[in-house]
């Protein structure tokens, strides 16, 4: 193989005229972080609501939860992103579709919402499983004290349920970060996107993707460490991570 290694490439100016190749990758890194956080917030909120709905006695609520989860988890993420980005504007009334297409940062919003909803189905299943695994008496005890259903979930069931699923939620957060790479297909210049353009401009494919790999690894180490600190801080005796 005749590959010409050049690790100095990162400090050479990039063809856009705005800084070095490293700056290019860093801007991609930043966009990856922004997209991941937005997607994760959406996943947590929607996942929690839907997960809770699936545990309610109401038939309608649990049916809606079931349909939601099956819809979002049974389609490949890439297909979902394409649906939101290319198909949705065509299905809407003309004026709305046009507005959507001309929206600034459309790839960013599409990625954040699309990945967020995709991940929310997974979060929902974990929340549901966790609530379902709690002793039935916990809900009865809270109810017997006069707490309403909403209060029972807020003050009793969810605080325990979230503690139990913190380790798998960490994995889902990492998945969310890695899934943002899919957004390259709708033109979002996140980390993978920037690494690819660096490769195209400089032909230094190995350096570009090595750097991208290291950056993904760094974000994930930060997330894993942060989540472990959270786990330790909310640990309760007798439960996971507790004594």
């Amino acid at each position, binding site marked *: 193989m005749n590959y010409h290694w050049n690790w100095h490439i990162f400090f050479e100016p990039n063809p856009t005229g705005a800084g070095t190749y490293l700056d290019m990758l860093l801007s991609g890194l930043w966009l990856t972080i922004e997209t991941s956080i937005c997607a994760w917030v959406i996943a947590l909120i929607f996942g929690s609501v839907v997960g809770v709905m699936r545990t309610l006695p109401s038939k309608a609520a649990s049916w809606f939860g079931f349909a939601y989860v099956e819809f979002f988890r049974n389609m490949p993420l890439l297909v979902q992103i394409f649906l939101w980005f290319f198909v949705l504007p065509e299905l809407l009334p003309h004026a709305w579709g046009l507005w959507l297409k001309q929206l600034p940062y459309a790839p960013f919003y599409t990625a954040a919402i699309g990945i967020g909803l995709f991940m929310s189905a997974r979060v929902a299943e974990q929340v549901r499983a966790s609530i379902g695994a709690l002793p039935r008496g916990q809900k009865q*005890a809270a109810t017997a004290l006069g707490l309403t259903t909403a209060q029972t979930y807020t003050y009793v069931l969810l605080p325990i349920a979230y503690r139990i699923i913190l380790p798998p939620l960490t994995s889902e957060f990492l998945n969310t970060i890695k899934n943002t790479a899919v957004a390259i297909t709708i033109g979002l210049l996140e980390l993978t996107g920037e690494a690819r353009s660096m490769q195209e401009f400089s032909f230094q494919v190995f350096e570009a993707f090595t750097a991208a790999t290291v950056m993904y690894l760094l974000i994930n180490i930060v997330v894993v460490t942060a989540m472990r600190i959270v786990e330790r801080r909310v640990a309760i005796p007798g439960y996971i991570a507790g004594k």
Partner: protein
Amino acid sequence: MIEINHVSKWYGPLFQALKDCTTSVARGEVVVVCGPSGSGKSTLIKCVNALEPFQQGKIIIDGISLTDPKTNLPKLRARVGMVFQHFELFPHLRIIDNLCLAQEKVLGRSHDEAAAKAMKLLERVGLTTHARKYPAELSGGQQQRVAIARALAMDPIAMLFDEPTSALDPEMISEVLDVMVDLAREGMTMMVVTHEMGFASKVAHRVIFMDQGEIVEDTPKADFFGKPRSDRAQKFLSKILSH
């Protein structure tokens, strides 16, 4: 205080858990419910707090019908204390917060007021030094005493006990029964599902014997221990009193 009129309950279309049960508990009365396992005694006491739905009959607490659609169930439940077989303390809350939660969220007491009340009740059950601990750090007997204190913190008009000592080691049973005996002597209205015949003979006014979802006997204590009228009650008594 508690009136149970012709209550029937089915689990699914086939299994009838309660068959036309009728009884009552007067103000200040202590009624012990006993019977073999699967006889419906726990189901009956859970129906009294509307934790289990029933299909036929009526339960009236302090003049308010449980089945009346206008009844505010959470509000009614808050006035009836309930103690469970497995304690059901909230594992993520310290002992003091277990006692404060419903006082604040349901009764609207200030935190200071609730905490003062909680400490007074913890003193009563002899656990003030454990106020800052988590439930898992206490023994079973201590947890059950906390659970009784938690129910009392709501200033209940009646207390329901669902096999409060069945999950305890023999040496811890007496510390829980002592608290219950004191409560009975102070004139608390109590409905107690238990196999502790010593407790029944000490403080109960009436004993209800259930078998296969039916109330077989409902007699003053002296009659029950003197000469139960039914064969089934006699057999039951001879079995549990033989050791």
